[in-house]
């Protein structure tokens, strides 16, 4: 009888040990996933230019994505009025950049020398893209996708816009 109880007791302990082990492993795995997700940083750029055809779009290389992230952080904030310039309907309207950090997305519009980000329905922030340097650099990064002729058109159009 005593040995039977011992055997059941040992079985119970084994069950709890296995359960605890699975739980710990799950937590470690979940933690690792969060770390990995946070590390994934990709930047998708779309030239908002066409009406009928799909817009040309491309991904930044890992190095350029890192540089883009640092560049965005260095921009000076500007007043909401700076983002009021309406782009012309037909023709080049600017760049739409989607920055992805794991599951988190950050969507930016770059035009008229201003970077705008909609953080919420009534919370749009603006930063200055002085001399449109960021816009030009991003356009240059898409040279292969855009081709020479369209790239030249977009570079010039970016400068024409007020």
């Amino acid at each position: 009888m005593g040995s039977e109880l011992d055997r059941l007791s040992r079985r119970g302990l084994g069950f709890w040990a296995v359960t605890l082990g699975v739980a710990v492993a799950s937590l470690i795995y979940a933690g690792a996933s969060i770390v990995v997700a946070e590390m994934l940083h990709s930047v998708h750029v779309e030239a908002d230019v066409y009406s009928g055809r799909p817009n040309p779009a491309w991904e930044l290389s890992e190095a350029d994505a890192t540089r883009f992230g640092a560049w965005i952080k260095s921009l000076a904030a500007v007043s909401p009025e700076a983002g009021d310039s309406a782009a012309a309907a037909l023709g080049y309207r600017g760049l739409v950049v989607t920055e992805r950090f794991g599951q988190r997305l950050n969507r930016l519009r770059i035009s008229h020398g201003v970077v705008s980000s909609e953080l919420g329905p009534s919370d749009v922030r603006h930063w200055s893209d002085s001399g449109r340097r960021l816009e030009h650099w991003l356009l240059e990064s898409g040279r292969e996708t855009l081709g020479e002729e369209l790239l030249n058109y977009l570079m010039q159009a970016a400068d024409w816009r007020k």
Partner: protein
Amino acid sequence: MLKVTADIFSGRPNPEWVVDEAQAAPILREISLSSGVAASLDSGFQGLGNRGLIVEFLDDRFATDNGLPNSFRLAGGGSAQEGLAMEAAEKLVATMTPEAGGHPAAASANLAEAGALPLDKPLQKFILETLPGRQGSVVTLEPSAAEESGPASFAAQAACTIEVGAFNPGFWNDAAHIGKNNCYNYASNRRTDTFAQPGRAMGHMYAAINCAEVTNGAVRDGASLDCAPANQAPRWYMALVIAPGPGFVDYHWYRKSKEGFWGHKPGGTAARNTDNSGAIIFDPRTANRGPYTIFCRFMFAQKKMIVK
């Protein structure tokens, strides 16, 4: 001898009359004095409604004497000197009625049988008022105008019956749909969420971006170049334009709204009724279209049209 055709109708025969040499000579001399008044036959407005006058010499000597081509278009909106072209066109239209010496280009009995209209003053007035070369003239295609003006109206005979919906940008601009529908979706009034391309629904998309290819793509999808029958209602009135490059090559569409203006949706941006100058679009041919400098034509979406 000179034959003048008012290129105005789509179904019934166009009004045509012959002008004798004595009457035509001073008008032709004015046309030949300034280069660019006589325009090529394929120039100017080529849509539905008044497309200007077609002038044809019926005798090769007469053409040579004036240094003009054997046939040309006048006051159709394609002349380099549209003001002078309008003046000459008015003088030619003045010769149209029998009282002014004009006579039909074919036997009257045959013309009446074919549905041609008599060369009278009301027709003369209508031709003059709707010439594309006349500043501010527009082609009327509102269905109410066509229906209310009755079968005897020239406007009704020159136009097609179409349907028009109230301008409703909210249908296109909500967050779930705005980025997934383009100008072709808007113009054909089909919100497919597929950023539709002309011809793709039929498995044969345009092969290049020019008027002919994009038009053909839309026709393959079921659009019509001519008036569509009543059983194809709703028949939306669309206009196609092209950005020819260099560098920037694309197409764009507009659709006429009930209010009389035209709406459009530039790519994944908001549907609107204004052009690149912020002006309300009453005529896509003259609107500020940015790089979309070529006006191709008007077309009709019809019931059987499918876009994808």
